[in-house]
């Protein structure tokens, strides 16, 4: 039993029944996404706070432990992620100009860059596995207080893992968007989904922008 209005609402690009016009719908969607990002900021914020408290309590060990992370891979990954943010911005731009091929190209590139990031991330995880630096499972840390180092690595895995989970969700979103874009759903008139996915992806990028110095760069100078 689908009413006519609902049926119309299912067609992308149409105004859903609860809205009066495109402008209202677009405003609502964007505001909705930003509100969601507010929750994300608080979500990661809780972990940043925890990290900050322990980092100041166990500064020495945290500094040491951070040297166990691979700075080369970390820096490369930062660059990869920033590049993917650029491609997303360009994808939105292409959608705004109704350039279907460009949109598809940038979406594909974003997915590829995202996968490269995850590939590198999991390589790093594997190294940690080999080096026995996974708290609660395989953990050996002879250089200092092993408990405190374990806290460092707990946060490392919790935060980068949560970040990676967000990336995976984002990549999934871009794949879905890619299919829709292939079918020509997006144009200068209607590109809200691309824009919203973009906002999400940039947010995930920003999280990494903080994770990178806090975990990789902390103890380099000593």
């Amino acid at each position: 039993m689908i009413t006519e209005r609902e049926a119309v609402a299912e067609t992308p690009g149409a105004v859903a029944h609860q809205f009066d016009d495109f402008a209202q719908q677009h405003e609502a969607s964007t505001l909705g996404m930003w509100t969601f990002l507010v929750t994300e900021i608080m979500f990661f914020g809780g972990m940043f706070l925890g990290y900050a408290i322990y980092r100041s309590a166990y500064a020495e060990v945290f500094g040491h432990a951070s040297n166990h992370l691979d700075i080369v891979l970390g820096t490369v990954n930062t660059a990869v992620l920033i590049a993917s943010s650029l491609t997303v911005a360009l994808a939105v731009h292409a959608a705004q100009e109704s350039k279907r091929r460009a949109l598809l190209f940038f979406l594909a590139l974003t997915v590829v860059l995202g996968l490269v990031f995850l590939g590198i991330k999991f390589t790093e995880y594997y190294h940690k596995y080999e080096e026995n630096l996974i708290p609660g499972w395989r953990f050996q840390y002879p250089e200092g207080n092993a408990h405190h180092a374990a806290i460092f690595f707990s946060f490392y895995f919790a935060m980068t893992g949560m970040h990676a989970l967000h990336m995976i969700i984002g990549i999934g979103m871009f794949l879905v968007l890619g299919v829709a874009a292939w079918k020509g759903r997006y144009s200068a008139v209607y590109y809200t989904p691309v824009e919203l996915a973009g906002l999400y992806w940039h947010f995930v990028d920003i999280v990494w922008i903080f994770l990178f110095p806090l975990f990789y760069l902390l103890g380099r100078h000593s």
Partner: protein
Amino acid sequence: MKAEKLDIPLQPRIHYLNVNYGIKSWLLTTDHKRIALLYLGSITFMFFIGGAAAVLFRLELMTPPGDLVISETYNKLFSLHGIVMVFFFLIPSIPATLGNFLVPMMIGARDLAFPRLNLASWYLFVAGALFTLGAILAGGVDTGWTFYTPYSSVYSNTFVVATIVGVFIAGFSSILTALNFIVTIHTMRAPGLTWFRLPLFIWAHYATSLIIILGTPVVAITLTLVVLERVFRLGIFNPALGGDPILFQHLFWFYSHPAVYIMILPAMGVISEVVTCFSRKRIFSYRFVAFASVAIAVLGFLVWGHHMFVSGQSVYASMIFSLLSMLVAIPSAVKVFNWTATLYKGSVIYQTPLLYGLGFIGLFTIGGLTGIFLASLGLDVHVHDTYFVVAHFHYIMVGGALMGYLGGLHYWWPKISGKVYPEGWAKFAALVVFIGFNLTFFPQFVLGYLGMPRRYHAYPDEFQVLNVMSSAGASILGVGYIIPMIYLIWSMRYGKAAGPNPWDSPGLEWQTPSPPPTDNFERTPTVTRDVYDYGERGRG
């Protein structure tokens, strides 16, 4: 009234309840009004589960030794009670039922901004509830609703993880509801409905949503860390591994104190509507009441440390939190005084919703004032974690929020169901609830000051008399809750038709038939006057 008489329909009028039938039409609905009813059913179920646990442990507490159930069971019962009542009943109670139903209607919209998200939030709620109930059936959880570490993360050997997963999912459900409200209130108000013409119910829901958006993610991540710590034996909150259990308390209360305002603000919104309608007057000082909601939302985030005065928190941090707790009481005081002033020179009609409303004002005042006791540092040291605290929060949550919820349910019942509930029974039930409530929880203030600690399965003999009074009250209270359930369900079938506006209220939700059509209004209304325009003498 006139409109109703004119189109006495040959065929029954189509409204949201009868547009279509069948399980699927409900489980796949995106209509906010139907989702509200789905929620209403679910939370009522959860309330009775939490209530049944209360009945059991109140029975246990009739006698000093722990003789009815063993202590493991006792601990699981109050944990179950707290978790279910807070996360699965009171937090969603008003927002997800009355709020869901009324927010679009009061602002003249056809639905919430994201109807499918709204349905998703109900499914998340159900999934969360199933997890938690599953954990209970599997054997229960014994951490209390506060999940303090390292007990929860290391020592308890009950089903902590499954419970937390349930709470986590329910948290996302309330985030989705709040997100929907915020966006809807910002972008979908009817023409002419400026911010200062919004019903105070909407202001309260807006403030509540802000708290949910800003606070819930923090408890989500905190509980996630507890799960990780438990499963992978990490040391984030476990002192044996270098972690800090007090950090958990900070993160937990950063959400859970504001969460108490999630529970009370919507009820305050209900009271503002009810008191004005039944004294036939606009609210005294609209702006102060509206801004008080926002002030509570903001200040509410600055006081969480008042739960940690004896936890080893620094003396100076405690002082800051105490001072700020005094400030957060002021907007509540403003509301109480303005409601009282609204009655002045009114034309007061004793209908059930108003009885609940007046009950709310009185009991919330007592509950709130005892909050000031708790916020006073030196005194909290003595009463912290005693029955004084238990009495404080039941006065606010049961005497306040739950009464507000029942009042609201009665007030909008004609709109929701299209039927009138039996007034006599309703008044009787309200009276039973009021008496039962006070008998249950007033003795607990005395018990608390005498020093009876909370979460105690057995207690010294000299506390028995007061405990028996409390248990007796609880059974009266239980009866008081069962009566409305029966007659409200009864009235859905046998009640008299209510008509579009039985209370003769100027609110937008009343300017459409009861029950409303799926799209709420035939035509998007245009607002030109004050929502609280009861046609008082002297209005311009």
